[in-house]
């Protein structure tokens, strides 16, 4: 059994253990869950250390027959792109557990159910990035909806049931299109001598251009909903508004990355010709997302939907980088996925603490927090600086790579994208001013600052943002060979191929 399978199974086993704990002892349930998630994080780091960044292709591969009649396998393996996303997942989960200590209380179901759902979700998140069998990927892609549905609908706030259903229907719709495309490509592989779902085998098929277009769209729309890309985005703000801070963190920080990850892993790898056909459209949608998300963020009154719209803008950057198809764009976009995960975690968690204390998510209810809760205010401020990609923080490196990589091929799109940095300054600084600066607003005078548990939860996120801003090299080195493989397969090369003096 490869270390990858072990990593996948650990949270699932943990979920079983938690399931047998007494329902009455909420504290024990939380402690055991955190211990398990820390163990998972440790194993994932061990795996990253053992990963050989010099070798292209998948590592830690394992394949077991699952449904032999259709040649469906439990096949897993990671390249650099999948590895960094798995690391993002395993590091965020314990942070989310610790940060959202009280989130599980007051839900429709028990505390135990909450942690079982989250641990099962962790297994699926690792599995979805590790799957190298398209059918396996599809199954997990769809199955992930279930725990998230219950997490939003059962433990959220406000119109949580409606938000959960909206999320579910949207995703199911995309999933169905993808299922059609999955079946389609399987049939093609059958016609070309031996049906398979193995992504490497599938990428060797010769598929005529019109068919590629249809199959591409089947995958792409599912991923564009997941990511989400304008105009498929409206489920996200309502989900973020209703979900708990921890769920939102995992939803936007990790799950949505499955969309952008899928674009690289499946859309580009399996359908290179179609990718080229649709690139102009997708680049345009990306730029619209960047600007539209930013404008909408400026106009929000609810702090959580503001964060959701900033993410739509950031996902625009990610898809821009992916479809620019340059090494800077692709590596930058992948690194962006990781950074956005941490950056969004910082935003949602700190905002969640603010909302929890103030009992309101309306930005206008805050004010003067810097003088009342300085540590919380600083944490939120640093998260905001990361959202506007301040140089020195990791998000700057990825955002600039995306922009410079896009500029070499699509200068006009990159120029419009660059305008997003002014809008980002606006949406961050406006909410910072309204919530942290000014006179202390009535109702905020006696808010308490972060306690030790919360400080311990947010500290690693901030450390990652700063350290990866100065030393992004280890992460970039993991990603680089994988993007080179993707580009070579798609038959594209950098316009600026040789470094100057």
């Amino acid at each position, binding site marked *: 059994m490869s270390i990858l399978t072990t990593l996948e199974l650990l949270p699932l086993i943990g979920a079983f253990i938690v399931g047998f704990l007494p329902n009455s002892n909420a504290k024990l349930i939380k402690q055991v869950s955190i211990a398990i998630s820390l163990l998972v994080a440790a194993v994932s780091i061990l795996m990253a250390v053992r990963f050989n960044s010099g070798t292209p292709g998948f590592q830690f591969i394992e394949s077991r027959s699952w449904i032999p009649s259709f040649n469906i396998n439990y096949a897993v393996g990671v390249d650099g792109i999948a590895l960094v996303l798995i690391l993002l997942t395993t590091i965020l989960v314990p942070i989310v557990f610790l940060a959202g200590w009280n989130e599980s209380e007051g839900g429709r179901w028990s505390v135990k159910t909450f942690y079982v759902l989250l641990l099962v979700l962790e297994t699926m998140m690792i599995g979805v990035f590790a799957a190298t069998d398209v059918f396996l990927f599809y199954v997990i892609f769809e199955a992930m909806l279930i725990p998230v549905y219950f997490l939003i609908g059962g433990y959220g706030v406000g119109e949580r049931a409606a938000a959960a259903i909206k999320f579910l229907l949207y995703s199911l719709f995309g999933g169905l299109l993808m299922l059609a495309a999955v079946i389609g490509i399987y049939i093609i592989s059958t016609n070309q001598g031996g049906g398979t779902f193995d992504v490497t085998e599938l990428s060797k098929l010769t598929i005529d251009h019109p068919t590629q277009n249809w199959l591409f769209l089947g995958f792409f729309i599912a991923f564009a909903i997941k990511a989400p890309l304008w105009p498929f985005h*409206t489920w996200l703000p309502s989900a973020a508004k209703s979900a708990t801070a921890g769920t939102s963190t995992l939803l936007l920080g990790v799950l949505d990355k499955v969309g952008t990850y899928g674009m690289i892993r499946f859309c580009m790898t399996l359908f290179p010709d179609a990718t080229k056909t649709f690139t102009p459209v997708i680049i345009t949608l990306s730029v619209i997302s960047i600007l539209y998300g930013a404008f909408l963020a400026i106009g929000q009154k609810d702090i959580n939907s503001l964060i959701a719209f900033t993410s739509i803008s950031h996902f625009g950057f990610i898809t821009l980088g992916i479809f620019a198809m340059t090494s800077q764009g692709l590596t930058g976009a992948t690194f962006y996925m990781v950074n956005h995960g941490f950056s969004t975690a910082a935003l949602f968690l700190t905002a969640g603490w603010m909302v929890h204390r103030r009992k309101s998510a309306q930005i206008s209810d805050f004010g003067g927090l810097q003088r009342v809760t300085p540590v919380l205010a600083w944490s939120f401020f640093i998260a905001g600086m990361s959202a506007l990609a301040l*140089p020195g923080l990791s998000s700057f490196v990825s955002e600039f790579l995306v922009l410079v990589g896009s*500029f070499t091929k699509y200068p006009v799109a990159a120029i419009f994208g660059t305008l997003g940095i002014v809008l980002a300054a606006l949406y961050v600084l406006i909410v910072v001013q309204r919530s942290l600066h000014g006179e202390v607003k009535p109702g905020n005078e006696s808010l308490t600052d972060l306690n030790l548990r919360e400080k311990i939860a947010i500290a690693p996120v901030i450390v990652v943002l700063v350290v990866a801003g100065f030393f992004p090299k280890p992460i970039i080195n993991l990603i680089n060979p994988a993007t080179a493989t993707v580009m070579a397969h798609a038959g594209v090369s950098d316009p600026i191929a040789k470094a100057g003096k």
Partner: protein
Amino acid sequence: MTTSTHLVYLIALPLLSAALLLVLGRIADKWGHLLATLVSATTFVIGALEFFAMQSRTGASRAATQKIFEWISVGAFKVDATLLLDQLSICFVLLITGVGTLIHIYSIAYMSHDHDRRRFFAYLNLFIAAMLLLVLGNSYLNLYVGWEGVGLASYLLIGFWNQKPVYATAAKKAFVANRVGDVGLSLAIMIAFAQFGTVSFDGVKAGAPHASPAALTAIGAMLLLAAAGKSAQFPLQSWLGDAMAGPTPVSALIHAATMVTAGVYLITRSNFIFDASPNARLMVVTVGAITLLFGAIIGTAKDDIKKALAASTMSQIGYMILATGLGPIGYAFAILHLLTHGFFKAGMFLGAGSVMHGMNDEVNMRRYGALAKAMPITAVTFGLGYLAILGVPPFAGFYSKDKIIETAFNSGGTKGILLGGATLLGAAITAFYMTRVIVLTFTGSKRWDDKAHPHESPILMWAPMVVLAVGSVASGFLLSSGSALVNWLQPVVNSQNVVAGEELMKPIVVSGLALGVVLLGVLLAIFKYRTVPTSAPTQVSVFTKAARKDLYQDSFNEAVLMRPGQKLTAGLVLTDYKVIDGIVRTVGWTLGAISTAMRKIQNGFVRSYSLLMLLGVLVLVFTIWLVTL
């Protein structure tokens, strides 16, 4: 090129100190200011040692580099964290750490009653670190990190008292205006990479002579946009006046002596771009000329002493920017003026702070008057700065400003006459508004309110003012005797040793003219402000009204950018809800309605099921019949 191992401390020490003071929090309240001051002084010592070491080396080996670590490497895009200390950057290092340390010392006293003094000093150290990175980075991307870093420090310091909403707004405005400039810098870097495959100064310098004029013009224009944002040049100038919300030592250090001059550094550093692009140079001199007049005109109408000085800063940087656009010989004069300005303007700002300190934080000059007696040291040091900015020989500004005026006149043709005329006119207006400041503040009659008890500031405050006053007197002479600075900078700028073209006017004529118009400005101000009402007169000309309103810069921005932007945002929010989400909700509602209708069919009655089955069979039979036909 020499390899150095300790350049990194210049940045690491203040950065760590800032982080330490912020993380430790209140524990460090007692000694935070001392640590920060000590660290700043240490960076000055390192800088001075480097300077002496440089002097002992010759030629190309004077410049030193240090590679700290590999930063980003993706495909052809390779950027390392490498520092470069050359003849140009050492000027800035000494200015930043020298003036910076003086201002740290001054702030110990100035901020002594502030509950958050430690935080203030943490921000100051953060600024020093970022500013040093800005001038020491060896590539545009390294520079960019410092560039936004100083923007952050500036934001934090302008908003230091952000519990006052106006101050918080001023901080935000500064950051956003700077970000508009940063778009320029980002795009310049992207174009440079697309053109040259590198973003290092060396690489771009090597490639610039072979690049297309269009690319060079584009890079130049984008660099100018960046400079305009950071250096408060037209059309991104509007934030600087509001930035005076920050504590006065900040105004002296960041918004007068160092950060706002970063645009001048950027253009000077990119001299290889501008030397190769006449179009870019034309844009630069245009922006410089407009801003130097714009700032000077605003300066004539300000009653707030800090805002008058801020307008003056904008105008003086206009001179520097203009000089950088005058071709290879202009850069050195821009840097000369930048250094002398660093002394006299920082000195005057500290003087203003000293006055405010003695006057219960009153900033309205109409409530000052006759303060020379109460604050003799402040008055004398401020007066020396005044003589320097006017360009009276032998004070510092005489050497630096007259050189710019002279070079502008001699830049040839109508352009030369226009630019020279603008600089001369600017000098006259400068004399007017600065004399106005002196008259309103230090001479004339007392117009204090009853609670004011003006007194001289403590030694920690006046000692730095004295040092800067000495600089205001002597720096111009020292830096230009034997063309010291021009020769020193030679390898970095104007390496081809271009000399001035045909002389339109001899230096002595320029100086005579300049002194003449300055005298005119001085006399006019003295005459006009023989008596000063304590509230600003309301029956004034349209010109005065316009100048008081900063020539309507804010009204313009609000009408052209802010309000349409707000409308667009509101419109998009509505569209998102009504149209995009509306379609989604309609689809959802329709599906729901269909489901409800379908549910009625599932009613549990066998008779309706059999009826449906019958219908189904009929449809089937009918279909088969149709198909087989």
